């Protein structure tokens, strides 16, 4: 009991301290410095309408490269930790009728919707990560509905690796063509899609990268699900 009281008092003091700090950063005030530059130049410098996507992929593309690596580490780590020679699904109860028929109907559309999200990343909110996550939910639905369903995890690992490599190769091409790593050579040097801003084929290499991220996140998350669901079968 004493421990909880002690914890609460400590946290209240820490909370008060944080609040005092945050009071110096009043809510809702316009303190943008670099943000203003982005908003003013995003359309003509990157061709993307969605400023957040431009920042994520183009201006701060390095972060996203790191980001994709973090997820890659997560999926490899889970794979490494839960590794065993023979793993098999040991679920016994089949999904209810509603679930199985629903999944049969919905799975393709959920995947399609996921693909839609990351292809239109530079136009509408959301991008590679939410798109990938939606695809992963489709696979999760299949797992829950059918007892025997398994994703081809060897193939998924290969896709993951290949797609990751393409991301880095896109960066290296930028280095070769434009002289800078992750340089948007489609928009800057080749100048494609300058005319149809706001439509699909615009935004430089943002759609390409977001497709890469979408596929990668989709395969990785389903790989994690696959690793966690299966159990070691000692025979």
């Amino acid at each position, binding site marked *: 009991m004493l421990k909880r009281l002690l*914890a609460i008092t*400590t*946290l209240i*003091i*820490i909370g*008060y*301290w944080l609040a*005092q*700090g945050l009071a110096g950063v009043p809510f809702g005030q316009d303190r943008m410095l670099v943000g203003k530059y982005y908003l003013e130049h995003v359309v003509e410098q990157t061709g993307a309408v969605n400023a957040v996507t431009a920042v994520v992929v183009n201006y701060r593309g390095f972060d996203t490269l790191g980001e994709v690596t973090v997820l890659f580490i997560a999926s490899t780590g889970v794979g490494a930790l839960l590794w065993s020679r023979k793993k098999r699904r040991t679920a016994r109860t089949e999904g209810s009728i509603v679930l199985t028929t629903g999944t049969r109907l919905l799975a393709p559309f959920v995947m399609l919707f996921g693909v839609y999200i990351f292809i239109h990343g530079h136009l509408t909110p959301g991008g590679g990560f939410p798109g990938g996550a939606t695809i992963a939910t489709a696979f999760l639905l299949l797992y829950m509905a059918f007892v025997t369903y398994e994703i081809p995890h060897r193939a998924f690992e290969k896709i993951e690796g290949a797609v990751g490599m393409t991301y880095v190769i896109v960066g290296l091409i930028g280095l070769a063509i434009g002289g800078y790593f992750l340089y948007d050579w489609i928009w800057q040097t080749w100048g494609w899609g300058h005319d149809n801003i706001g439509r699909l084929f615009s935004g430089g290499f943002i759609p390409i990268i977001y497709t890469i991220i979408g596929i990668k996140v989709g395969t990785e998350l389903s790989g994690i699900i696959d690793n966690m669901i299966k159990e070691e079968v000692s025979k």
Partner: protein
Amino acid sequence: MNEILIILFTPLLAGVLAWAFDFRGVREVIGLIGAAVPLAYLVKLYPAVIEKPVDYALTVGGFTLQFQLGTMSWYFAAVASLVGLAMAFGLVATSRSGYDWLFALMSFTGVLGVFLSQDFIGFFLLWELMTFASFMMVLKRNRHESLKYFVLSVIGAYAMLLAIGILYARTGALDFETIRQALIIDVSLGTIGKGETILLFTLFLTAFGVKAGAVPLHVWAPGAYSETDQSYTAFFSGALSKAGVYGILLIYMLMGYKLYAELGTFHGHLTFAYVIAWIGAITVVVASFLAVLQEDIRKLFAYSSVGQVGYILLAFGVGSPLGFAGGLFHVLSHAIFKGLFWLVTAAIILQTGRTRFRDMGGLAEKMPFTFAMGLIAVLSLAGIPPMAGFASKWLIYEAAIQAHMPLVAGAIFLGSGLAFAYVVRFLYGVWFGQRPSELEDVKEAPLPLLLAMTILAIPNLVFGVAPGVVTGYINRILMGDVVGGDYYRLVTQTGTYNALLVSTALVIGLAIAGLVYLYGAKARRVPVTDTYQSGNPVTEEFNLSIRRNFYRPLAEALEFWLRYSWDRFYERLAKLSEDFADALRQAFYNGNVQSYSWYLAIVLLILALWGVL
């Protein structure tokens, strides 16, 4: 000039080579050359050093290490390399592995470096090297003693490093010359306060006290001296303890004026010098008493070595020029007679394998040459005229009396008395009397060991008969005619000592006694139990003979004092700190993630409280 570099680093190089080429013949030859080179170069540089000190600077790791061969450093280096050469010859006989050669010669470099360096970084580096090398010699044979030795000397070394840091922070310099000037100027400026000067003084005193074996910090000496290859102990106690004493001189040179200004005087003596004098006095008394009560030769000589270094501390503590002269002379004489003692012990242990009085006796016939060397060492330590020991002790007595320090002088007299007591017991217990049956087939010590003994015996005799040689050089060190007289006579304000006259009188007297003994007296067999019971019944328990508990009554008399032993105090302290460490570890790293996250929360709380308040 890189002569200094050669002097300094040939022993180390030779040690490494000896360790690398660890074969029977090669190792010894390399070792001997390595030990001989410094002495040779020192002698070569003697004329140059007389006019102008030889300087050499070396930049390593951003620090400039300055080395200088001045009159004083030449003196200390010569003493060290003389004993080092004797040690090398001794090692040829006693050591079997390159390991001993490597670390013996590395400590040789360390000592030379300490005497020659003129800036604190070089001083500290070579000081640590010397401590580490001597520690490794002891580590090989006994872990507990070596760790005790290492911990105490590392505490000393780090106390010195702290003092160096403070001096560097205050004076912005590391080399002795600038620090000396800065401290003199500082007396008027007063940037270093009284408290800080006392702190600096205590830190330096601990550092050099540990190495010299002053009383509270002497506990490592018996263990370290007895638990290593005895011929190395000749160097260990002969030369390494001199580094501590050299440090005390360093305190005088660097901070003397500042300490005088800050601490003033006490009954007409410099306060800080008075402290050193008393530390020396207590060391002499305590070490001599403990030495007398020992049953093992090595322990006996270890305590006696600590006592003798106490003499030197006391001499420097007296603070008068004569005191310094006596102290410096005693540095030389202690090195030669103590080194000789340890080589004699090495020979005894090498041949008989025994170290306790109880198992020895009557070795004079079996090992006549070693006996002769032992006799010279005994005379020199006890301070009997023809030997160097007498001259230096005489100077120290003169200094103490002139400086009106009766109690301190009293301590020296008591110390010399006790020294005579344990030395006589060694003489009679080991060499004369009944020879145990197992020692029948004991042969004389091997030739290299005998050579080593002669190297140290000759100076005993030469400087005994002609002390003026040494005092002449010492006058040059102290830049003043401190001790008058020519080669054979020492003249001070309160008395003169004509060494030649006294020696000739002694020789004649001995000759007469020899004649009487050979022709007149009838030799009669004395049973081994012919003891001096003075009336007590001879029971099994109280059977005192020269070889067993000879000084038991003295021990009973000192019962009250012997209960408190520094050694046990330090052991308890070490155990306490180790248990504390254990408790701390169990408490803090208790393995529970929750408590770890609590530590994080506490740090956040501290930050919050600091921020909020």
